[in-house]
């Protein structure tokens, strides 16, 4: 005890000094994030400035464009930047939107179940199950998708007539929107459940008791009072899960089909069997093209879109959770 005395009161661990050291570290973390945002956008600039808003629009085959961009960087001729990313963006919207909708529905029911209606033994099982599903690495989900779900869809769900009806346009093998949405739902629903349960648990008991005292049954009380009071948590969970879904790269690279194709809902129900490729997997698939300057710029442009949307979503979630704390619910 005595030997430590001088050290703790000496200049080495003085309060001001510790505060300054920690402050510098925190500033470094903030600086790193700013540097990252700046770097990604600076690198992406050539691709955006050459294409303008057409970057986000449809036009031409996106895979051929990516290839041409890559080759122009290799050959030493003038760089080609023409890129119309709509099929990739559309695929991102479809896959993310689909899985967030399904996950929102099921996560809400499961969270209500865990907090309110499940018998003790059942919620004791469900909570570790949810935590486990959230911690399974995405590559394992991808592997199971490729080896189990995709062949199942390809062999049993898609009929031969459906395959031949679009044979001239695209081949249906099971790598599909459906597979991607299902597996992605499985990945983001546990995240939602854990945030929703936290929100539902922190609803003031008095509010619920008031409703019960009026003779409203437990089911309606939970949905009308509990779920409504926990709305900020539900917004936060949904938005954070959306950010996660947009950024998911490896699993989708494995099972989405990896074709720059925009599935068309006008084709009827068959469009859920059509392959596509969202933005994030496009980076994974073309990562060996980084050495070609125009391809590098294009990949960073995709990364910039992902960075922007994911950051916006996670900051929205953060604000929603802060508002929850303000109402004393957290």
């Amino acid at each position, binding site marked *: 005890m005595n030997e430590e005395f001088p050290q*703790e009161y000496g200049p080495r*661990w*003085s*309060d001001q000094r*510790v*505060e300054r050291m*920690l*402050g510098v*570290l*925190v500033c470094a*973390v*903030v600086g*790193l994030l700013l540097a990252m945002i700046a*770097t990604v956008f600076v690198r992406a600039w050539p691709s955006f400035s050459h294409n303008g808003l057409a970057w986000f629009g449809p036009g031409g085959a996106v895979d051929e464009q990516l290839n041409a961009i890559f080759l122009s960087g290799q050959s030493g001729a003038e760089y080609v930047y023409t890129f119309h990313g709509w099929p990739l963006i559309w695929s991102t919207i479809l896959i993310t939107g689909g899985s967030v909708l399904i996950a929102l529905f*099921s996560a809400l*029911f499961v969270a209500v*179940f865990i907090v*309110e*209606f*499940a018998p003790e033994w*059942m919620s004791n099982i*469900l909570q570790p*199950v*949810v935590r*486990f*599903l959230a*911690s*399974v*690495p995405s*590559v*394992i989900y*991808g592997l*199971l998708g490729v*080896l189990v779900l995709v062949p199942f869809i390809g062999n049993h769900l898609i009929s031969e007539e459906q395959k031949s009806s679009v044979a001239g346009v695209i081949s249906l093998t099971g790598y599909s929107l459906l597979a991607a949405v299902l597996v992605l739902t499985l990945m983001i*629903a546990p995240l939602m459940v854990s945030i929703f349960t936290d929100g539902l*648990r922190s609803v003031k*008991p008095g509010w619920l008791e008031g409703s*019960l005292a009026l003779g409203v*049954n*437990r089911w309606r009380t939970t*949905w009308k009072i509990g779920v409504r009071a926990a709305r900020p948590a539900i917004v936060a969970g949904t938005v*954070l899960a959306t*950010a*996660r879904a947009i*950024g998911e*790269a490896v699993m989708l690279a*494995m099972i989405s089909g*990896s074709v720059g194709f925009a599935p068309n809902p006008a084709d009827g129900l068959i469009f859920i069997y059509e392959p596509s490729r969202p933005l994030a997997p496009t*980076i*994974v698939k073309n*990562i060996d093209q980084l050495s070609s300057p125009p391809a590098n710029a294009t*990949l960073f442009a995709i*990364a910039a879109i*992902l960075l922007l949307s*994911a*950051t916006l979503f*996670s*900051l929205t*979630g*953060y604000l929603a959770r802060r508002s929850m704390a303000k109402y004393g619910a957290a």
Partner: protein
Amino acid sequence: MELSLKAPKQAVEGSATWALSDRIGLVVCWALGLLFCAVAVAIVAFLFVKGVSYLELSMLTTPASAGFSQAESGGFSDALFGTMIVAVMAISLALPTGVATAIWLVEYGRPAALARITESTIEAIAGIPSIVLALFGTVIFSNTALGFLSRSSEGVVFGRSFFAASAMLSLVALPLVVASTREGLNSIPRHVREASYAVGKTKAATVRRILLPTSRPQVATGAMLGLGRIIGDTAIIIVLLGATQNFAPVEEAPFPLDYLRGAGTTLTNFVYEASPTGNLNQPEKAYAAAFVLLLMVLALNAAVDLVHRRARKVGTWSH
């Protein structure tokens, strides 16, 4: 905190008096709850069966090699060691940084504007897709000034190494460590700090001697959650660890550094490459490697549970 509706056990109303629509809703709850359990059991059981039938102990000790059939192409020992190296390096970067950030946020946090900016920075980092972190990593570590962290030839820096991958992976774990440590520090009531100041301890000494030891369970939880994310991440590994299946040590460096500066592989990368969409296409070995990876994740989950239960046994502060 348990919801109080549940507290008086005998008074809980059954669903017998409910309207039909409410009862259907309850059935949906049960169905989805059981579905979650069934999916989890199916994943574990399926990988367990496949893993036990395809995993051979020799796979854990032999590195991958080129071969025509799955019997000739070796195992994945390099991937297993790679996962361990990456996990140790990344968490030893993320843990001190994360704990220090959390301490600053909870105990110091002045000026308030910087504290708010830091909080949103951590939130933003948590939301950044790892593939974007990976691309950013290629820019940093291809810098000639950082050539000593990876392979370089004739002034061109390769920028892919264990150092590069671990540094970026530590950012994946950072938000989890910060959040968990903050939770721990926040749960210590004010009077504990005041008691420490009253006996003449400085703020720094209070943090070091009282607050950090008390919030050790939460710090450990954050570290383990972070570890889980690190060993499960694939995008950063694919981009920043080099597309190889073996260690590729740098020749000119002394022993540990030559491997750390070189390219390598991890279990997640091996599973990705060995799946039918990867370059190796050896599904049986992919199952075996995925099984090993799943065991690691399960072990981490069990450890988190254990820490939680122990912390609860010790009891919480009375406010």
